[in-house]
């Protein structure tokens, strides 16, 4: 934390009381709103012992769900990192008509409801959709199958890498790249030896956010996948399934695993964020 010079200067002396009341209120609100539920679910999961926790996690459906989440996340990282960097380069370095509108489209996934997003993909990639029609003819299933879930996850996580890389790239400017060209480096060499090392922390931050969101995505994937057990069920869908089946032990155990992963990702995010800023 940066030291704030004169941190409490305006509320000196007579306002000490107000200050402590405000701190107390804020901390209490924060603890009750966000921390108490976390504590509750961990307590609720383990009050019956580790045994139930483990057994409800190693069911075939649960294992399959976590594995599917893993593969979707891996695919999302690869595709959205590559295209996120390309998008950032195009938006920072190129000028073309309609660029502002294009930039607006890049932001859109943050504003669209996941359920609506999933619905859009059903319409486009479903058997009667503009694109789905073609795949249907070639016997390739997109909706209610892995490709559809992948596309839905790509959609909801698309802005993260681009949004994080754009400001870094803008600040990085052109001169270092020009210096590399003059020293004889080709565009490809310059990209890997000069550009990438300079944007790496921004990129890493964007990738971490992408991971967090792909693991946690629910609505869009639910709509696109149809949530078929052992087939198109990711970890979040699995939790939902267990919950609606009143199998609370299974739902809680999987939820705790995801909550712990979220916490680890958050820690990673904070670490990367600090590196990015220094």
């Amino acid at each position, binding site marked *: 934390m940066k030291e704030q010079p004169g941190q409490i*200067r*305006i509320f000196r002396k007579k306002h000490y009381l107000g200050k402590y009341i405000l701190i107390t209120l*804020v901390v209490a609100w924060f603890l009750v709103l966000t921390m108490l*539920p976390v504590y509750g679910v961990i307590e609720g999961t383990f009050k019956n012992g580790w045994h139930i926790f483990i057994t409800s996690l190693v069911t075939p459906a649960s294992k399959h769900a976590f594995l599917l989440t893993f593969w979707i996340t891996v695919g999302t990282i690869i595709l959205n990192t590559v295209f996120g960097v390309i*998008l950032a380069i195009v938006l920072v370095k190129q000028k073309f008509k309609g660029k502002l509108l294009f930039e607006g*489209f890049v932001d859109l996934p943050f504003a669209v409801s996941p359920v*609506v997003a999933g619905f859009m993909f059903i319409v486009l990639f479903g058997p009667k959709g503009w694109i789905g029609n073609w795949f249907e003819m070639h016997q390739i299933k997109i909706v209610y199958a892995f490709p559809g879930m992948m596309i839905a996850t790509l959609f909801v996580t698309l802005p993260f890498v681009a949004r994080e890389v754009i400001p870094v790239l803008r600040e990085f400017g052109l001169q270092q790249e020009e210096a590399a060209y003059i020293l004889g480096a080709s565009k490809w060499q310059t990209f890997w030896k000069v550009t990438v090392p300079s944007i790496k922390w921004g990129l890493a931050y964007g990738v971490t956010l992408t991971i967090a969101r792909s693991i946690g995505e629910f609505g869009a994937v639910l709509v696109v996948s149809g949530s078929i057990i052992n087939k198109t069920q990711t970890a979040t869908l699995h*939790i939902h399934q267990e919950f609606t089946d009143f199998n609370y032990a299974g739902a809680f155990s999987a939820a705790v695993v995801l909550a712990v992963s979220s916490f680890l990702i*958050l820690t990673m995010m904070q670490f990367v964020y600090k590196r990015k800023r220094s």
Partner: protein
Amino acid sequence: MEPMAYGQRQWKNWVMKNRLLRYFSSQIDNLILRSLSFFYIGILIILPIAALIAKAFEGGMASLWSNIVTPQAIYSLKLTFITAVVMVIVNVVTGTATAWVVVRYNFPLKNIMNSLIDLPFAIPTVVTGIMLVNLYGPNSIFGAWLGKYGIEIAFARPGIIIALLYVSFPFVVRTVQPVLQEMEQDMEEAAKTLGASSFNIFFRIVLPTLLPAILTGAALSFSRAIGEFGSIAIIAGNIPFKTQVASVYIYGELESYNQQGALGLSVVLLLCSFIILVLLNLIQIWSRKHEGTARSN
């Protein structure tokens, strides 16, 4: 020089041609990158939206409208907006206060709290729902205790608002925090030397400066709230005319293979997303102008 003239001309022609070639080849990688971006955004964002809108208007305006104005759809829309507005009001106050406390004051474990503010972003919404049901559900200790006094949280409206507060908690804090951090305290000190009270300083100096950030945070929270699905589906369930918000309504229609019924509200939500995006950009432009004039003065 004379005998050289012809050769020189040829050389020049070649260079000119080559320069065109070079221009093209220097542009080709740019063109490839641009085409790739257009392809990606096109297939992932633009085409799906176009497809949805095209399908919505397939049967004409009248049939789309009749999908929107069914009592159940209207109720869920109303519920969505009311809960979102209540959440935004609470979130603006608590978020600004949290940002203020974290930036201006020192207290034990402040840094840990500051890191954990982002946790709601990292936790999957389904997990949020599960955690809230566990805490406030009728079977939980807390929920049962409240139930004795007739207060329902889970599977009722308060549950929706709590879920929305949880998932959008970081928005206002994280937009206000950096502005507060960069805010020059000399402005406040100047106001103090001019005899302004703490109350006056806050409402006439601090708040106007923070306003663009607060509005941005509010718009982001609102946008998240009208689209939120996972946590609400779990804590509030899918009870028509009670806890069914728009996104849950759409999901319900899809679940019962009624795509037509889902189209109406989907278009409405999509329209809201567009409006909020435009609004966010306007806030940004406005605050930049604001800053610009302040600086040039």
